[in-house]
């Protein structure tokens, strides 16, 4: 598959993968490709200058060095397996890392889209409504005690009884408690939200309502008991204000317990399975609503699951397609009038015949699979061996500059990027071939490989450490925002998503290419009994078997 290219350039195909993703964005870039095309590669020559050629210790035909700059807008010389892939000329804009690190942050597209369609406006309103409400409530909460204290001074200052040290003590405690409340609210509520969930969190709604009720009832009492009769006891008014702040601090304590502490104790064991390749992980969760549990599980997904690779899945589909492909059932006897009634019987009959014929073919299918897999394993191992040797050799050519090297010619002393660029071509070909064999070439762009190489050189890593990133698929998060698909998750659940997770709950987290099936089991109630062992009770006897001759 690699030998047909006359140049051994490095394939830079993340562009095509990215354009696939954006083909399905709501902003409708016009691409009608399916995900299996992401494995097609586009070749781009690395930006190597002739002055570094002298550092390469291999044949020039191996090194992907070409004259001229790479042309980012066009592919390289035509690649036979590229086919009729249309070019995405917008890739310059789409390469910016704008996609969902935080669902609340505005991306470029969304700023543009805010004013455009009514659907977007509704969505934006939905997103910012809780924030606006929270801010309003916060302002109300902070202003109320101050208003309680200032209104009497503003309205009937002459009739107020001056109170001495006790009031000042109350003012001090009020100000510090208000400060503590502000810091606590900032710590708990004013964090950037990490996700946009489908429904309002029940606890937050409850807490907001409680705070509002509390404040309103305090205002009511204030209005009836203090404003109306114009109470002169300032000490009492100050105590009233301080009691409000105390109550608000306790409501904040309740918020900490409900929102943060309650879900810490694990009581459910959750099994998450990816639908395409069956990767399964198990996690322990506490008492959460289904949507928040889904959020935690997605965060674990991004950390633990290896990157979803559609290229690895086409093989089994091809096999099943081949089995059923050659078998078509024609009903020769169906007359024109009887087709409607004969349809159901026809389809079941034809299905039965097809499965019977397919069963006969199965003998060759499993044989094929066995030999194909053995062959593939051998090829991967061979390529891997070549890659390891090439990388080790490349790493021997560069080392950190020591004191005695300062007298060396300045042309040999390089920055880390230049050093990485210098040794990269010797391993590029074997790396590209290895990635092609394991079908992961679309995950790593040339730029990212060079960056990783520079990182390894700076941190004195061994060649094996450098290679680890490419030998196994890592978690999704390390591959750059175009792979995250962070705004495309749908929670499919039969139970209400704000209801709590129960034993036996099942729900689905659907993405465009695959879905994650989640099953919940509760951790059993463990009953532990105690057995006391007296330390003096450890006594031993010797069992001998002696033989005496008499």
């Amino acid at each position, binding site marked *: 598959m690699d030998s047909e290219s006359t140049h051994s350039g490095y394939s830079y195909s993340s562009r095509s993968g990215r354009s696939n993703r954006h083909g399905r964005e709501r902003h409708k870039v016009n691409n009608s490709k399916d995900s299996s095309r992401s494995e097609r590669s586009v070749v781009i020559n690395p930006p190597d200058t002739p002055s570094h050629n002298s550092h390469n210790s291999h044949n020039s035909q191996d090194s992907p060095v070409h004259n001229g700059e790479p042309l980012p807008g066009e592919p390289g010389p035509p690649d036979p397996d590229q086919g009729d892939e249309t070019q995405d000329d917008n890739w310059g804009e789409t390469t910016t890392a704008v996609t969902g690190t935080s669902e609340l942050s505005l991306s470029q597209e969304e700023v543009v889209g805010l004013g455009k369609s009514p659907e977007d406006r509704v969505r934006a309103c939905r997103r910012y409504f809780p924030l606006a409400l929270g801010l309003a409530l916060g302002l109300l909460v902070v202003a109320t005690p101050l208003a309680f204290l200032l209104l009497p001074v503003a309205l009937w200052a002459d009739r107020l009884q001056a109170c001495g040290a006790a009031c000042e003590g109350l003012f001090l405690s009020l100000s510090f408690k208000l400060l503590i409340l502000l810091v606590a609210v900032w710590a708990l509520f004013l964090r950037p939200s990490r996700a946009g969930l489908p429904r309002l969190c029940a606890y937050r709604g409850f807490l907001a309502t409680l705070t509002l009720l509390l404040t309103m009832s305090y205002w009511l009492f204030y209005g009836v008991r203090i404003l109306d009769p114009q109470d002169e006891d300032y000490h009492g008014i100050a105590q009233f204000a301080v009691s409000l702040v105390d109550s608000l601090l306790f409501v904040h304590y309740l918020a900490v317990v409900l929102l943060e502490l309650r879900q810490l104790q694990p009581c459910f064991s959750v099994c998450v399975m990816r639908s395409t390749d069956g990767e399964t992980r198990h996690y322990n969760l506490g008492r959460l609503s289904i949507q928040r549990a889904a959020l935690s599980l997605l965060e674990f997904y991004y950390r633990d699951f290896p990157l979803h690779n559609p290229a690895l899945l086409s093989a089994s589909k091809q096999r099943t397609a081949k089995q059923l492909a050659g078998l078509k059932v024609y009903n020769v006897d169906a007359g024109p009038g009887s087709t409607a009634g004969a349809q159901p019987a026809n389809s079941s009959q034809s299905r039965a015949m097809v499965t019977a014929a397919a069963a006969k073919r199965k003998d060759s299918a499993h044989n094929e699979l066995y030999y194909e897999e053995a062959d593939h394993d051998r090829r991967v191992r061979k390529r891997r061996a070549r890659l390891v040797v090439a990388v080790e050799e490349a790493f021997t050519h560069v080392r950190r500059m020591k004191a005695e090297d300062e007298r060396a010619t300045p042309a040999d002393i390089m920055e880390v990027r230049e050093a990485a660029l210098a040794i990269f071509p010797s391993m590029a070909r074997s790396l590209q071939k290895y990635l092609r064999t394991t079908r992961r070439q679309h995950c790593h762009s040339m730029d990212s490989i060079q960056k990783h190489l520079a990182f390894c050189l700076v941190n004195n890593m061994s060649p094996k450490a450098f290679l680890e990133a490419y030998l196994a698929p890592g978690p999704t998060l390390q591959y750059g925002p175009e792979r995250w698909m962070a705004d495309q998750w749908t929670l499919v659940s039969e139970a209400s998503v704000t209801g709590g997770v129960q034993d036996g709950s099942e729900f689905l987290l659907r993405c465009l290419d695959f879905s994650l099936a989640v099953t919940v089991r509760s951790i059993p109630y463990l009953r532990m009994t105690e057995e006391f062992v007296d330390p003096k009770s450890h006594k031993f006897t010797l*069992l*001998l*078997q*002696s*033989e*005496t*001759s*008499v």
Partner: protein
Amino acid sequence: MSFIPGQPVTAVVQRVEIQKLCQGDHLILGFSIGGGMDQDPVQNPYSEDKTDKGIYVTRVTPKGPAEKAGLMMGDKIMQVNGWDMTMVTHDQARKRLTKKKEDVVRLLVTRKSLEEAVKHSMCGYPKQ
């Protein structure tokens, strides 16, 4: 050779009389014993019942007095000169066998083949 605790032990025994041989200033009998109340009965290779803590003959020196008298390896010693050997410790057994004042020991030993021989001989005769 298994026994029921609390019940008298019955066994088919053979009387073996060994003359002690004088070797230097010791009197030796020419065999080795193993087992005893203070020993681990599980490790006894000759016993049928692995809870049997009796004294067993583990080795018989060739051409010694014991072999001449007909003692065999694996025999369980039931009595020595009238003293019981089924419920003694290893050291007590050794002492009873190596008394300097006696130069003859009369053992009652039992082995599996004795039981079987008796059984076979009894089957041969019709009941009278």
